[in-house]
C-alpha cells in the first residue's frame, strides 16, 4: 500500500520547484530589471549634502586683493524631517512672518519632501550667530555654508564682472551646476568661471527611518572634499584703474591702458561705472534692475563693446600701410587742399611725420586714394576693388575688424568694422559690385565713414606703434592658480608685417603731436616724459567724440593707451589728450604733480562746458 501513491511524490516535488522558480522570477523583476527601487531607496535613506568650494580670489598686478569671499549661510530644509517645530521661535529667529514661513515651506515641499532645498539664502554671519545655538531645536533644518563675493575696491566693475544664480540654460549646458548655484555672469567672473569655481565636495549622510543622522554613508567612502577655486592674478594696476576711473567720472567713454611689451591690460575703464558690491547678495536683484534700466548703461563695458568711429587716430595706421605699399615715401608731401576735405588751419605737411603731427585731412585723403587706386587695373572701379582688398588685409593685421582674443567674455565684445569689397558689393546695403571706387569710400581715409573701431583696438594700435610693428593680444589675467598657469596664446607676437623704420616715423610724428608747436595733442604733455600720442575727433550724430591714443616713453614704452570721451565739446586734443597725459604721469611717475589739471578734468562734464584749461591758458 505504501508505494501505491509513490508517484505522487513527483507532484509534491514539482510544486516545490514551481514556487522556487516563481520566487527567482520575482526577485529578478525586483532586483535586476527595475532601477526605481534603488533610486527610491537611496532617496529616502541617503542625504547628499553639497560642500561648496571657496571661489578663487582675484589680485591686481602688484598683489593687491581685488576680490575675495565672505562666508554666508543658506538655511536648508528637508520638509519630511521637520518635526515638532516651535514655529513662533523659528520665525522670530529668522525675522520672518508666519505667512512667509508657510510659503517657503510650501516651496520646499514642492521641490522634494525628502531632499534638502534652500529655505532662506545668504544669511550673514551676524544674523546666523543670533540663532546658531538654537539650531538643534529646529529638526529638519540644517546650514549650508556658501560664499559671497566681496569686491575690496569699488573699481573695475565691468572687467571683474559679477556672480549670479545659474539659469536653466546653464543647468542644461553643464551638469556641474545644481539649482541655486552661483556662476560668473560677466567679466572675468564669467570668462574664468571654470578656473575660479573650484570643485564641489559632497557629503553623503546616512539617515534612519526617523530621519536621524546615522553617520557618514559607508564611512565616507563616497564623500569628497571641496577643492578651492584657483586665484586669478590679473595685470590690472589697481591704483591706475582707480585713478583712471576717477578721471572719467562725470563722463561717458572709456580708457584702455596696455603694457605694450606683454599685451597686459593695466587699466580698463568704462564710464559711467558702478560699485561691483552692488551686485552681491540679497540686494543684487533690486540693484540689477536699477543698473540695467539706467540709460547710461553702466553695466556695459564700452572698452570692448563700443563701436566708435576712430577719427584721426586712424591716420597712423593709414600712413603705415601706404608707406609699406610704397605708394608714398616718408618725405612725400601733399598740399592741405581743403576743397578735397575739410581741415583746420595749418601749413601743408611736407612729410609723413608732419602730416601726423598736424593731422592733415587732405594729406590722408591723398594717401588713402593712392592705397585704394593703385592703378593695377584700367577700370577705376575694379582698381578700387583690388586696393580695398590689400588695405583690408593690412587692417586685419592691426587687429581691427575682428574680436581680439582677450580673456573676457566674447559675448561682451564687438568686432568693429573694416569694410571689405564684399561689404561695398552688397547691393542691399551699399553700392553693388564694381559700382564704387575711392571717391565713394573716401571718408574712411580719416577714420570716418564706414570704419568703426573698438577702444581696445585703439589701445592696441598705440601698442603696435610702441612696439614698432607687432602686438601681443591684450589680456587681463597674467596667470592663475598656485602653478602660475599662463595662457600660451598671450605670448605670441602678432606681426603687422610692416617695416620697423616706418613705425619709427610714426613714433616721431606722435612725439611731435605732443611736443612740437603745431601738434594737436599738446595737452598730453608731461614734464620729463616723452609722451607720444595722436588725437582724434570723431564726428557723429551728437557732439564730436574726443579720442586720444598714446604711449610713453618713446623708447621702450611701458604704457600704451586709448582714451575715448563720448560727445565731448572740442576735439581729441581738448579732452582725451590731457586725460591720457594724467594717466601716463600717474603710471610712470607714481603720482600726479599737476593737481590743478587733474581737478579740472575730473570734475568737468564735457557735455556742459569747455575745459577750463583753455580759459586758463587764454588768461596767461
Amino acid at each position, binding site marked *: 500500500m505504501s508505494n501505491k501513491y509513490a508517484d505522487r511524490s513527483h507532484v*509534491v516535488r514539482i510544486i516545490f520547484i514551481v514556487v522556487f522558480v516563481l520566487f527567482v522570477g520575482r526577485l529578478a523583476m*525586483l532586483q*535586476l530589471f527595475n532601477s526605481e527601487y534603488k533610486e527610491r531607496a537611496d532617496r529616502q*535613506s541617503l542625504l547628499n549634502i553639497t560642500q561648496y568650494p571657496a571661489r578663487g580670489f582675484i589680485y591686481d598686478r602688484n598683489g593687491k586683493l581685488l576680490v575675495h569671499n565672505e562666508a554666508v549661510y543658506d538655511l536648508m530644509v528637508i520638509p519630511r524631517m521637520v518635526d515638532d517645530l516651535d514655529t513662533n521661535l523659528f520665525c522670530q529667529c529668522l525675522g520672518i512672518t508666519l505667512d512667509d514661513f508657510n510659503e517657503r515651506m510650501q516651496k520646499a515641499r514642492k521641490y522634494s519632501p525628502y531632499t534638502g532645498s534652500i529655505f532662506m539664502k545668504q544669511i550673514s554671519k551676524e544674523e546666523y550667530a543670533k540663532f546658531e545655538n538654537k539650531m538643534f531645536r529646529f529638526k529638519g533644518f540644517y546650514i549650508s555654508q556658501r560664499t559671497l563675493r566681496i569686491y575690496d575696491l569699488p573699481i573695475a566693475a565691468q572687467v571683474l564682472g559679477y556672480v549670479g544664480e545659474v539659469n536653466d540654460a546653464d543647468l542644461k549646458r553643464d551638469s556641474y551646476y545644481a539649482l541655486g548655484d552661483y556662476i560668473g555672469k560677466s567679466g572675468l567672473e564669467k570668462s574664468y568661471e571654470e578656473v575660479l569655481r573650484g570643485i564641489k565636495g559632497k557629503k553623503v549622510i546616512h539617515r534612519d527611518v526617523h530621519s536621524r543622522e546615522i553617520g557618514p554613508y559607508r564611512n565616507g567612502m563616497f564623500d569628497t572634499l571641496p577643492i578651492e577655486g584657483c586665484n586669478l592674478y590679473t595685470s590690472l594696476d589697481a591704483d591706475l584703474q582707480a585713478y583712471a576711473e576717477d578721471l572719467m567720472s562725470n563722463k561717458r567713454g572709456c580708457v584702455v591702458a596696455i603694457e605694450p611689451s606683454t599685451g597686459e591690460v593695466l587699466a580698463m575703464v568704462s564710464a559711467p561705472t558702478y560699485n561691483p558690491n552692488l551686485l552681491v547678495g540679497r540686494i543684487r536683484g533690486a540693484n540689477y534692475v536699477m543698473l540695467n534700466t539706467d540709460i547710461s548703461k553702466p553695466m556695459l563695458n564700452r572698452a570692448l563693446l563700443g563701436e566708435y568711429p576712430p577719427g584721426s587716430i586712424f591716420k597712423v595706421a593709414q600712413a603705415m600701410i601706404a608707406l609699406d605699399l610704397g605708394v608714398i615715401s616718408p618725405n612725400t608731401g601733399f598740399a592741405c587742399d581743403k576743397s578735397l576735405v575739410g581741415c583746420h588751419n595749418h601749413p601743408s605737411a611736407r612729410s609723413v611725420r608732419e602730416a601726423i603731427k598736424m593731422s592733415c585731412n587732405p594729406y590722408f585723403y591723398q594717401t588713402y586714394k593712392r592705397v585704394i587706386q593703385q592703378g593695377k587695373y584700367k577700370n577705376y572701379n575694379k582698381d578700387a576693388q583690388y586696393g580695398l582688398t590689400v588695405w583690408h588685409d593690412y587692417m586685419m593685421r592691426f587687429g581691427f575688424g575682428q574680436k581680439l582674443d582677450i580673456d573676457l567674455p566674447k559675448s561682451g565684445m564687438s568686432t568693429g568694422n573694416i569694410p571689405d569689397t564684399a561689404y561695398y558689393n552688397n547691393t542691399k546695403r551699399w553700392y553693388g559690385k564694381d559700382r564704387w571706387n575711392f571717391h565713394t569710400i573716401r571718408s574712411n581715409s580719416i577714420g570716418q565713414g564706414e570704419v568703426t573701431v573698438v577702444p581696445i583696438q585703439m589701445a592696441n594700435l598705440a601698442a603696435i606703434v610702441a612696439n614698432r610693428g607687432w602686438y601681443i593680444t591684450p589680456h587681463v589675467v597674467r596667470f592663475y592658480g598656485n602653478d602660475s598657469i599662463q595662457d600660451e596664446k598671450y605670448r605670441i607676437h602678432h606681426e603687422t608685417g610692416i617695416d620697423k623704420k616706418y613705425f619709427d616715423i610714426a613714433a616721431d610724428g606722435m612725439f611731435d603731436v605732443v611736443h612740437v608747436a603745431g601738434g594737436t595733442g599738446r595737452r598730453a604733455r608731461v614734464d620729463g616724459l616723452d609722451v607720444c600720442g595722436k588725437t582724434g575727433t570723431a564726428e557723429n550724430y551728437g557732439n564730436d567724440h574726443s579720442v586720444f591714443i598714446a604711449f610713453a616713453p618713446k623708447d621702450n614704452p611701458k604704457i600704451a593707451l586709448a582714451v575715448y570721451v563720448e560727445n565731448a565739446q572740442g576735439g581729441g586734443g581738448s579732452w582725451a589728450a590731457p586725460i591720457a597725459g594724467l594717466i601716463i604721469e600717474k603710471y610712470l611717475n607714481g603720482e600726479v604733480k599737476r593737481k590743478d589739471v587733474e581737478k579740472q578734468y575730473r570734475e568737468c562734464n564735457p557735455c556742459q562746458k569747455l575745459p577750463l584749461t583753455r580759459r586758463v591758458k587764454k588768461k596767461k
Partner: protein
Amino acid sequence: MYQEKLKYDWLTIGLYFAIMLFGWINIYAAGYSEEHAKVFDFSVQHGKQIIWMGVSLLLAAVIILTEPRVFSNTAYAIYGIVLGLLILTLFLAVTVNGGKSWIDLGFFRFQPSEFAKFATALAVAKYMSAIDIDMKNLRTKMVVAALIAIPAALIFLQHDTGSALVFIGFILPLYREGLSGKFLIIGVTAIVLFVLALLVDKFILLGALAAIAVLYLFVWLNKRTSRDYWHTIAVVACCALFVFSVDFVFNSVLESHQRERIDVLLGKSDDTKGSGYNVDQSKLAIGSGGFIGKGFLNGTLTKADFVPEQETDFIFCTVGEEWGFVGCVALLVLYTLLLQRLIVMAERQRSTFARVYGYAVASILFIHLFVNVGMVLGLVPVIGIPLPFFSYGGSSLLAFTILLFIFIRQDASKNQLL
C-alpha cells in the same frame, strides 16, 4: 535483533546548519549598531539567537540519542499536552503585536503554537500509520481533519492567523497517502476565485465561469453523459456560491488590517505610508540590492531600520539588500534542496509513520517559506510567520529544530527491524 549502524543524513544536517548560520549573519546585520557590534552581546537579538542556537543543538543531540519509537509511542501524548498548552494560552497569553499566542514564563516568553506544528505532525503520522487506514474512507478523513483543525482553530483564536494557516500544509502528506487530488485542485481554485472575486465584477466572473463550463462540455468532452452535465452544473453552482460568499467573508470574517493587506497586495490600495508601508519598504530594500547586493552591513535601509520586523518576519529583506539577487537565490536553493531532500528521505522510509511525518515536515517548512518569502516579495498578503531556521526567535528555532531532527532520527534507523 539485527541492528545496522545508524546512518544520519548529513546533507540535511549540513543544509540545516548552512541556513541557520546565514540566518544569524543576517540577524546580526539587521540589528547592527555601533554600540552592539560584539558577536556575544547577549542584550541584543543576535546575541540571544546564539543562545537559542546552542539550546537547539542541545535539543537536537537529545533527539538523536532518543530511540525513534519513543516518538511514535508518545505521539498522542505530546499532541494532547500541546493542545492543553494552546487552551491555556488562550487564558494566560500576553499580547504581542496584537496576537495572543505568547506565554510569559518570566525568563522566557514562548509560543505554544510553534510547537503545535510538530505535535500535530506526530499525531497525524501516528494515526495514518495504523494498519486499517484508507484515505478514501470518510471516517478517516474526518478524524484526520479533526486532528489538524483542532490546533489550527485554537491558534486562530489566539489571533495568530499566520500560524493557523500553516496547517493547510498537511494537505500534502494526506495527498501522498491517497487523498484525492481534487482537494488540491479545489484549494487552488478557491484561492484563485477569491482573488478574482475581489478584483473583477462578480457577474463578469460568473459569465466567464459559465463560458468555461460550456467550453468544457462541448469542446473538451467528446462524449457527454447526463452525469457530466449535472457535475458541471454543480461545480459552477458551487463556484457561484463561493464567489458571492467572498464579499461576506472579506467584509465580515476578516479583520480590517487583513482586508487592507489583501487590498495592498492586489494593488487596490497603494497606501505606502499606512498598511502598505511594510511591503513597500521591503520591496525597496530588496530591489535596491541589485545583483550582488550592497554588501554585509552596508544595507542602507536595513541599517536605518526602515523595514519593521526585519530580524523576524522580514529577515529576507536583509538578504535581498545586502547580498542581492545572488544571495537570495542561494538561500532559496538551500531551502529547495532541503525540501527535495526531505521528500527523497520520506520516500525511502519503511514505516508509514516516518514517511507521513517526513512529508509533514517538508510541507510545514514549505508553507512557511512560501508565505514568508511570498509576503516579503509582495506576492502574498502580509501574514506574520517566520522563515524556518532563519528568522530571529527562540520558540520558532527550537520548534523547527525538533520538527526536523525527529525526522532525521527516524531516517537514521530506517533499516532497523521494527
